[in-house]
């Protein structure tokens, strides 16, 4: 390859476009200085092309290598070895290669890296938008490859793009087949996701302000689809996450045996005897949840949920855990006995845990609780009285409550009287425990938005909620929601309706700006429906579904069947590619005249007189006549007609062509008769 290879201008434009396009999704995740270096490299590359700068010298290149090494070393120390550091290292090398590409070979390296870089985006997100974007990126990269192989004088950008589009579209059927049927091999290695991608969603601690922070987030938590299109009213949609039963006067925590959630087994109590703990009479509601990654192990479900999918574990408090952190969008099926009782019995140890309070503080609340309990007959009445107390007194539901000092419960109950769900849940549990009634806080989500276009529900982060479960003898753990007493709208119509007027609710999200406009809302829901379908059908397509598909197609799945199938698929692909390479559109263009004429040769092949490759029609006629003089007349007429139709321009464009075609057809059938063995018998007889 020549040393002075100059990239054609049009090709360079395409190459730079693909580089920019694959870098853009990374810029959101990479440290900002990587983006700065990328921009510098791209500008440098343009200046090289215009002749204002030269290729980097040895010193610059060595410096770049050392710089990259140092940067990756420090990054590994600060954020650890993982996807983020690997991605930014790759991006750095990628943009440096840009100013180094002198030969055509180098450009191919850059373009191949473009493909790799676009795949990196999929490690982070596999949504509709990313996929559509990467599809466009692939068209651009293919365009760059085409432009690179075009004449330097060609500036037909639209033609290049069209060809690239065509090539990409041609790949689609194969992609679909491979997607559906290629064996899913579990990755041999896994890229550890780094903690910098902080966990979202409900956490296993709740101090005042935690949930209200979450409510400001317009992000998606999960989507749910009920089997048989059941719709449940909003007030039943309590998506339980974690049960917090340890209170230190400030924060509610989940009791756990180990400090880190390394695996589900560490804190979900397995081998727990479920028999007799829950009442499994009646029909459960079955539903499917597709959850966004949270970097945490717990899952969400309705009251008394029972996992249907494998790999989900239940704790003794009916929480559910994934085996490992949820680092990717996952889908699971569960069923709930919405109306049934949990825990027939409360043993002494959990009872003790659930009435424990700090030794001192909040004296006023304790006194208030005792007085109130004394005035009513039963625990249930006491709980109802408390709810009534919240409802009738001037309590406010707000995202921006006043700050609380030492005795939080006291201050909240009797001074500030404003708070968010965590305040109410915390105070309610406190007041319950104050009189010896086991009570705990449950965090999760409440409510959902129904998408009318696709029949599923969307739960957003702003649906985050905290409520209580109180042990009532004979009734088990019963759900109480003091927030509902304060702000019934929150429970019946959702957080959006309750907090619409509240400054700070969703202040930075698009939903806040456009959510109320009908048209945009429709668009948003439509798009969400699309994304839901995509997640359900494409992203969640795994071995299991593939296995089912196999079974549906071929019956019982055996190793040999899979092998045969794979070999057949590969064979079909190779043969198809081979055929296209050997005979690019030969039959598709054939006009009827040629088709008819070729059938003549096919007919005569039976008597060993096929037309040879490269033999002209007149020569063929002469050869046939020389061999079989009895065919002279028909061959002469037939060939003359064909020559007229095919080679005499004035004839081939007249409307008579149709009748001549018919004539030709008649002659061919005549010929067929003449060469048939039957005719021969007739002659000899």
């Amino acid at each position, binding site marked *: 390859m020549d040393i002075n290879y100059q990239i054609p201008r049009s090709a360079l434009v395409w190459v730079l476009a693909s580089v920019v396009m694959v870098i853009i999704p990374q810029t959101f995740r990479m440290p900002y200085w990587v983006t700065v270096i990328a921009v510098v490299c791209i500008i440098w590359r343009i200046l090289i092309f215009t002749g204002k700068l030269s290729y980097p010298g040895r010193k610059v290149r060595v410096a770049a290598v050392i710089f990259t090494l140092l940067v990756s070393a420090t990054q590994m120390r600060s954020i650890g070895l993982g996807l983020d550091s690997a991605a930014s290292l790759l991006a750095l090398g990628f943009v440096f290669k840009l100013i180094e590409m002198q030969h055509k070979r180098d450009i191919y390296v850059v373009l191949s890296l473009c493909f790799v870089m676009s795949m990196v985006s999929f490690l982070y997100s596999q949504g509709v938008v990313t996929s559509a974007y990467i599809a466009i990126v692939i068209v651009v990269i293919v365009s760059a490859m085409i432009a690179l192989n075009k004449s330097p004088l060609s500036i037909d950008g639209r033609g290049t793009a069209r060809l690239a589009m065509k090539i990409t579209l041609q790949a689609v059927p194969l992609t679909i087949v491979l997607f559906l049927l290629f064996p899913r091999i579990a990755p041999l290695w896994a890229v550890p996701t780094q903690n910098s991608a902080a966990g979202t969603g409900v956490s296993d601690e709740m101090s005042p302000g935690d949930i209200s922070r979450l409510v400001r987030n317009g992000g998606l938590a999960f989507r749910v689809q009920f089997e048989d299109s059941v719709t449940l009213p909003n007030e039943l949609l309590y998506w339980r996450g974690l049960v917090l039963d340890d209170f230190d006067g400030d924060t509610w925590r989940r009791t756990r045996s180990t400090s880190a959630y390394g695996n589900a087994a560490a804190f979900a109590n397995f081998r727990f005897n479920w028999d007799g703990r829950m009442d499994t009479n009646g029909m459960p509601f079955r539903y499917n949840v597709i959850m966004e990654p949270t970097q945490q192990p717990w899952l969400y479900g309705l009251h008394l949920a029972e996992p249907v999918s494998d790999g989900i574990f239940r704790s003794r408090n009916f929480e559910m855990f994934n085996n490992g952190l949820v680092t990717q969008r996952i889908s699971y099926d569960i069923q709930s006995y919405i109306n049934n009782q949990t825990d027939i019995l409360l043993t002494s140890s959990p009872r003790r845990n659930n009435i424990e309070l700090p030794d001192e503080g909040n004296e006023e609340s304790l006194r208030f609780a005792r007085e109130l309990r004394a005035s009513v007959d039963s625990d249930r009445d006491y709980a109802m009285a408390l709810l009534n107390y919240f409802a009738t007194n001037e309590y406010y539901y707000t995202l921006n409550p006043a700050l609380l000092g030492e005795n939080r419960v006291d201050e909240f109950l009797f001074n500030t009287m404003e708070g968010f769900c965590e305040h109410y849940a915390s105070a309610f549990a406190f007041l319950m425990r104050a009189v010896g009634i086991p009570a705990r806080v449950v965090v999760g989500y409440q409510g959902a938005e129904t998408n009318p276009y696709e029949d599923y529900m969307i739960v957003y982060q702003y649906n985050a909620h905290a409520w209580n479960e109180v042990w009532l003898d004979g009734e088990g753990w019963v759900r109480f929601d003091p927030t509902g007493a304060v702000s019934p709208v929150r429970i019946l119509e959702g957080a959006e309706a309750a907090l619409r007027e509240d400054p700070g609710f969703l202040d930075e999200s698009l939903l806040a700006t456009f959510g109320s406009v009908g048209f945009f809302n429709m668009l948003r829901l439509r798009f969400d429906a699309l994304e839901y379908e995509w997640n359900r059908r494409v992203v969640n397509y795994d071995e299991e579904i593939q296995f089912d598909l196999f079974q549906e197609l071929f019956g019982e799945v055996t190793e040999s069947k899979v092998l045969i199938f794979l070999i057949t698929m590969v064979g079909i692909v190779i043969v198809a590619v081979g055929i296209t390479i050997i005979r690019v559109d*030969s039959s598709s263009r*054939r006009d009827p005249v*040629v088709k008819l*004429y*070729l059938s003549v040769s096919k007919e005569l092949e039976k008597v060993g007189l096929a*037309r*040879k*490759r*490269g*033999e*002209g*029609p*007149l*020569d063929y006629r*002469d050869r046939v006549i020389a061999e079989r003089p009895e065919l002279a007349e028909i061959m002469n007429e037939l060939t003359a007609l064909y*020559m007229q139709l*095919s*080679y*005499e*321009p*004035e004839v*081939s464009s007249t409307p008579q062509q149709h009748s001549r075609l018919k004539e030709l057809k008649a002659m061919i059938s005549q010929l067929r008769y003449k060469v048939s063995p039957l005719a021969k018998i007739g002659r000899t007889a």
Partner: protein
Amino acid sequence: MFSVNLDKESKTALTHVVENKFSHQVQVTVNEVSKALLGKDHQIRLALCCLFSGGHLLIEDLPGMGKTTLSYALAKALHLKYNRIQFTSDLLPADILGISIFDQKSSEFNFHPGPIFSQLVLADEINRITPKTQSALLEAMEERQVTVEGETRELPEPFFVIATQNPVSLAGTYPLPESQLDRFLMRLRIGYPDQRAERELFEMNTERDKVEGIKQCLSTEEVAEFRRQSAEVKASESLLDYVQRLINFTRGKDEFHFGLSPRGSLSIMRAAKTWALMCGRNHVVPEDVQTILPPVVEHRLRASTDEDGHTGASLVQRLLNEVDVIE
């Protein structure tokens, strides 16, 4: 090796002819010329085709095969002003184009036109002259005019060059480069006469006497008519497809050192149209293309393993056998 058996083409040449004025005139001319060059009807026909197409002809064959006889007989039959230049290595451009000589009586320069100023020029052993003189000749062939001492002079109309080349004794020759070979519409080989023709040859006194006896068959006007009419011959889509398939076959393949140039493909069409006209048709059929393909294309093709440029013939046979007429 140099006298390829032209079996296939000779057979084609006699068939597919429609009787009309043009085919009749051709037949008469061929008959007349073949009195001098016995048993070489097909070569005569091809030479005529080349001249009617307005192209120049390169005859490459061993000494004594009748190259000169063919060109001289053609000149006689078409009634063309004929000049023969025997090329040697010391020939200078002026020896071909002409020179201005000072006339002492009239005290001015008079231009003495060289042998190129005639309607049919036989350039004998063109590979013996130096590249400088070669290029002077080839420029005249291409431009059909000569510029001497700043003055441009038109060459007579029609203007044909029949160049001959001896392929055997290559010592002291300057082989024509591909770019110049490309200027010749056709390269012909005459080949050995068959036995009957050779016997007939023995019975004649001398060949030259026969040439002297050749009568004029076509007038200059009729030759010009052929050239005009051949441009009117139609080529259908199917035929153009076939020609394009032929051309594309030569391009971008490893065994071909280089593909056919656009000039080469234009030459195919030009010759095929003339051939169709000579066969009395107003449209081209694939057999026309196949007939003229070897002489038109052979010298433009060369296998990538080839050193001296004589693999064209086998490549053309590949073209004819592997590219299907109908697809």
